[in-house]
């Protein structure tokens, strides 16, 4: 790589700008003092207090239900959609439509889904959040799996058929294993996105089952407590892990 020279400085500033807030948050989550601007020594007490907060635990439970459910459904449906489009569609428009929910502003998607749910007189609850997350999750999985499909030798499926496997058998034994890195990457992506999704969940959720981001939002309204810092740090760790795994899996794909 070429030497950066004086460009090192703006680069460093940019990175500080990107990561300083995160660093502050993580550091303050270990601050023993309740006052954000005084350092009261290192402590993990906010983490243990978090574990005793029923509201947070309920939110976490709800969020996990939605995230896991949305991941499973989006992955299955998105993979099928990607394979279907790859095999049968020569239409760029259909391709583009499959990706729209991923690009659409959350606000638009949230309001649109709320209107739709009201229109069909569906009561709101965790399941409506789950459905809403499947809508955009599917788009992400489809995008990732489609990219992988272009790299797979199409004669593999024909070879399987030629050797006596039916279409269903071929799909599960040859097609899916070939797409596995992309499927896992897509699933992790959906899980991460669903985990901290606020806007769409805010619109499509019922009052009785808030997800974690909504719980945090309502807590923050009365000021940011170190407890929230701790919670945010944990969420960040989970997201980082998922995203890095997803990236590594996609990279593995490229080298094969």
């Amino acid at each position, binding site marked *: 790589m070429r030497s950066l020279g004086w460009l090192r400085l703006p680069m460093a500033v940019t990175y500080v700008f990107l990561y300083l807030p995160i660093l502050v948050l993580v550091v303050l989550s270990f601050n023993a003092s309740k006052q954000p601007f005084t350092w009261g020594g290192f402590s993990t007490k906010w983490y243990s207090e978090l574990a005793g907060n029923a509201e947070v635990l309920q939110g976490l439970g709800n969020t996990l239900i939605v995230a896991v459910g949305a991941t499973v459904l989006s992955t299955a449906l998105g993979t099928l959609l990607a394979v279907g489009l790859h095999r049968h569609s020569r239409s760029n428009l259909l391709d583009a439509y499959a990706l729209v929910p991923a690009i659409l502003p959350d606000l638009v998607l949230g309001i649109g889904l709320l209107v739709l749910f009201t229109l069909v007189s569906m009561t709101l609850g965790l399941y409506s959040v789950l459905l809403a997350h499947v809508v955009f999750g599917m788009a992400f999985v489809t995008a990732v799996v489609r990219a992988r499909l272009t790299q797979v030798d199409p004669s*593999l499926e*024909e*070879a399987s*058929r*030629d*050797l*006596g496997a*039916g279409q269903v058998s071929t799909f599960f034994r040859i097609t899916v294993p070939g797409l*596995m890195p992309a499927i896992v990457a897509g699933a992790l992506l959906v899980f991460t996105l669903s985990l901290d999704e606020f806007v769409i969940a805010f619109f499509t959720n019922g009052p009785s089952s808030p997800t974690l981001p909504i719980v945090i939002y309502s807590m923050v309204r009365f000021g940011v407590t170190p407890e929230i810092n701790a919670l945010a740090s944990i969420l960040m760790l989970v997201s980082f892990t998922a995203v890095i795994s997803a990236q590594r899996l996609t990279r593995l794909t490229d080298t094969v």
Partner: protein
Amino acid sequence: MNDSALAPLVSIRGVSRSFGDVVALDDVSLDIHENEFFALLGPSGCGKTTLLRVLAGFEHPDSGEVLLTGEDLLAQPPHRRPVNLMFQSYALFPHMSVERNVAYGLEREGRPKDEVGDRVSEVLRTVGLSDLARRRPSQLSGGQRQRVALARAIVKRPRLLLLDEPLSALDRKVRAEMQLELKRLQHEVGITFVVVTHDQEEAMSMADRIAVMGSGRVQQIDAPIDLYQRPATLFVAGFIGTSNQFQGQAVEGGIALHDKVLPGTAHGAAVSGNAVLVVRPEDTRLVDEAAASVSGTVVDTQFYGGVSTVAVTVPGHDAPVLHTRPGAPEVERGAVVHLAWDAAKAVVLAG
């Protein structure tokens, strides 16, 4: 090897297939016999691969029928046909070991585990890959991958084995080896082979019979030697080997050109009117002026070690006339030479 008295193993009758405006197969009919090594030879885009895919079941013809031992093959989906295809890309399953790749077809048949194990290790021994059974395809060389692909196809003991450009991905040395290996295997396992290739040497050296295809049609079906010595169409004459071609008017015993008669024989139907005489460079010989069919000036000589080629420009003839002889050339550039050939060695075709 001409068992035309026996009922054919595969009978292709009037098969046509078009992709939009492109006619890939145009009323193709041919028979393939039991235990035959059959080659479909032609330039790219001649329809040979489409025909192979029709046999495997991945293409359905627009019209025509295909019978395998008298039964309708087209009615069966690819996974129920007693036909296996070795893909040009080999299409080995990357997430399975060599062993698992080879076992795949037998497992889909629901064979018992012991039988699968025995047959897999037997076929791996046949192709000489017993030591590599646990490797992944990505850990193998090109030649080894091809052997796996072959083992995977023959382990099912198909009635018909289709090979799509089997040697095209291999380098020259491995290619010669595999050529012999394929022939040996075909004898050993007693399966009918159909090879698709654009490489005439490959087809000539391996096949019992060759169907030359051009623009979706079967141009000629013959044994390699007949194909070379008696091409039935100009396309075949031009595609197989090198040849000298003279255009003239068909007459008794050859063609008339510049008030001379070039000797030649019309096989099959008599030719009249415009005609082309085809003669192979090695069938020409240098003669005295009195006996000459054509005369001209040597423009180039090439010595290949075993044989040499002399190119002669003949007045009134566009392309140089080629003469091949064993050993070193006996004439030099600029010399005036006279060439002749036997009427039986030259073919007269309708022009």
